[in-house]
């Protein structure tokens, strides 16, 4: 393998051609770190979901209830979420260990320590998701489903192309281009094992919004990029939905056949929530005891970056994605057809539902929700 990495970097057998190598995403999950015993990171257990909350609000006590006051009202609360106090306790992930990156360069009181012992990890999204079954490895319906869809749907076929690579061990200056691919992934006979060496055409038409550019370097076999915003497709159940991460950065261990590691940054909360709501009905959320109504309040409460210049409230939450990529070849002809960078359409994060969110329901500045059980304090507001 070492021979392939070094001498092979310029050989015909190497996927590194002319200083360029490309990969397609094959697994994507929001980074959570779970101890073997649930009580360690969720000492009060996991959160209730839509079924449990509905039953609590409207117990089966013989009362004749109106659908408009119950079922429809819960849908309203989901589609037009607010930061008003939650009627249910929200259990955040505790503990001090989490997967992620130090996004702000500081070690703050809310930060985690990585499993390798590095302090300063910013991953408040884990604090919000960690005690929701839907995102827990052993039970995580969302975790599994979202990752499955990454492979299944060509809409989600995002590619990274690294150019300027001297070798896959060390390259002081590389460029990283993000595209969407158009083609199915190359699989083994089971149809599940993704094989390296497949080809991809770049989607320069529908995927023009996803064409993005980063600068970085490879150090000891790890690609690290400088922070820049990242929009990427993440459709579930055939709904056209995407994600937007402010100040995203890649940290991926590279091999000739795969790239694996983290993508860190501040997830845009409204875009994140919209992707969830449009892709997964309340029914789907119920599988993993995910109450979107409660989760939204937690996301806003734990938000720690990109304050709204008007209100001062943070609009993004520190996060990390565990990502796996498999090596692919990008067909040169499709690259030649790329539109000029200047003509690419701009991708804007979703601004939130225009109505009927009430201004009085919104957090003012960094005021904490008095009804929350948040352990978060001293949240750091970053300038975008």
């Amino acid at each position, binding site marked *: 393998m070492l021979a392939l990495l070094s001498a092979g970097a310029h050989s015909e057998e190497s996927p590194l051609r002319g200083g360029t190598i490309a990969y397609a995403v094959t697994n994507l999950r929001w980074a959570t770190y779970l101890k073997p015993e649930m009580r360690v990171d969720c000492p009060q257990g996991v959160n209730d979901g839509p079924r449990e909350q509905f039953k609590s609000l409207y117990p089966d006590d013989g009362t004749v*209830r109106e659908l*408009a006051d119950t079922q429809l*009202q819960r*849908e*309203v609360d989901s589609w037009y979420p607010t930061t008003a106090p939650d009627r249910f306790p929200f259990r955040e992930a505790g503990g001090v260990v989490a997967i992620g990156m130090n996004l702000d360069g500081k070690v703050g009181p809310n930060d985690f320590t990585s499993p390798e012992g590095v302090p300063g990890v910013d991953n408040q999204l884990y604090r919000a998701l960690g005690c929701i079954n839907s995102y827990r490895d052993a039970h995580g319906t969302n975790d599994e489903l979202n990752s499955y869809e990454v492979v299944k749907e060509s*809409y989600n076929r995002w590619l990274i192309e690294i150019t300027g690579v001297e070798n896959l061990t060390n390259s002081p200056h590389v460029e990283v281009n993000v595209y969407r691919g158009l083609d199915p992934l190359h699989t083994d006979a089971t149809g599940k094992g993704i094989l390296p060496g497949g080809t991809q055409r770049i989607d320069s038409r529908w995927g023009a919004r996803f064409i993005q550019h980063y600068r970085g370097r490879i150090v000891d076999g790890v690609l690290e990029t400088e922070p820049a915003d990242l929009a990427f497709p993440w459709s579930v159940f*055939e709904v056209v939905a995407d994600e937007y991460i402010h100040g995203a950065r890649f940290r991926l261990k590279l091999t000739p056949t795969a790239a694996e590691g983290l993508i860190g940054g501040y997830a845009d909360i409204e875009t994140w929530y919209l992707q969830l709501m449009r892709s997964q009905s309340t029914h789907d959320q*119920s599988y993993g005891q995910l109450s979107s109504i409660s989760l939204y309040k937690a996301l806003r409460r734990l938000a720690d970056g990109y304050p709204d210049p008007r209100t001062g409230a943070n609009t993004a939450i520190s996060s990390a994605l565990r990502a796996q990529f498999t090596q692919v070849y990008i067909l040169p002809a499709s690259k030649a057809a790329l539109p000029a960078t200047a003509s690419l359409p701009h991708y804007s994060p979703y601004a939130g539902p225009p*109505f*009927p969110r009430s201004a009085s329901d919104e957090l003012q500045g960094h005021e904490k929700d008095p009804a929350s059980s948040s352990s978060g304090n001293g949240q750091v507001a970053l300038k975008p």
Partner: protein
Amino acid sequence: MDLRWRRSALRLTVIVSALLAPLAMASEAYRPVPMPPEVRVAATELDGPVFTDSKGHTLYQWPLLQMRNGVTGDHLGTSECNEARTDVSAGLMSPYPGGLRLPDLSEHPSCAKMWPPFIAGAAAKPVGKWTVITRKDGSRQWAYDDLPLYTFYLDKHAGDVLGARSDRPTLDAPAVRRPAGPPPDVPPGFAVKTMSTGRLLVTEQGMSVYYSDGDAHGKSSCDATCAETWIPLLAPNLGRARGEFTLIERSPGVNQWAFRGRPLYRYALDGGSHRLKGSDTSGWHNVYTQLAPRPPAEFTVQDTTAGQVLADSSGKTIYSYFCGDDGVDQLECDHPGETDAYRIAVCGGGDAARCLKTFPYVIASAKAVPSGRSWSVMLIDPASGRPALAGQPGALRVWAYRDRPVYTYAGDHSPGDVNGDSHGEFRAERNGYKAFWLRDDFFSRDQPGPG
């Protein structure tokens, strides 16, 4: 109108012109079947040939459907749609329990009022697949393929198919009614798919079928290299010409299907069922048995990250609203004349005024020209969301598709944004808004129309 929108309007013209290819000028042929004397076949704009009663009312079936928490619909030979009004939800769609009182009960119709049974006269006799069943009240009802038949209360004119929205998504949709009709006159191995653009000819696996301008009538000029990308649709040795389908000899002993004289192909790079990708190649076209009416001139077409949507004149994506209640009879609730409690909940949190801002109607200009029966101008009372009377002060003149208003979404800011798509219950399949898709390059949705 800036250059961007002028370009969009031009593209709509180009798309519609492309659809008006010679192969799609005719209406869809069907295979005649034995029918009772009081039954007719009507050509419809969007759904192809359908059965109607003697007055031209489309006939519908309600097939049994496995829902999330149970089954509803008609069993073979039995009607479950009767005169008793359903007052509570059935809980067929989790996570909400059944037994909740449905909204606006005072105006909630019975199933049989919304879907009047197609009554068979005393002298009615079975013929072919047509049989007569006995309803629970003792009356006799026609059935086709053993499924009882109904009309729909909103269908007024021959060719109306307002009760079955072929544009409706189906993954978690209600147990919907479907128009009954004779089979399309296509050879084995072919099928016809209802799209927002027309009735698309596909293979039995759902893959789109194409023809080439480069072929002469009855002769293929696609050589071996061409055939690697454009896969000739070969006929089996026992294949025989029928209707508008003929056979051409591609090479000795090898026959290729042709439709209206044009050799037929699949596109190797389509990547999924009922795609329109191949038509991006100059000289190649999808095959439609009939075209949908072109959208009114006030609309544009916009590229999204997944394909093309219909948009208003300012480039904002058009949305359709879908609603079916969760009573055991799964009644429609997406027409403005029906309860608006569901729609007002998801578009305005219960406030009709907010709905007008969140999902505003698409206002028709004073010069608006309806297109076919599918695109019309409707008067709406903005205060209630209900149909308005002619001359009613403050009434809005809005565009409607299949007799339901269409909307834009205030959360869309740039052309091609589809942030309102799937806004509502069950990804908007039961109560919510779906973008009006004209072309979908990524998903093999069951019905890639507006939804």
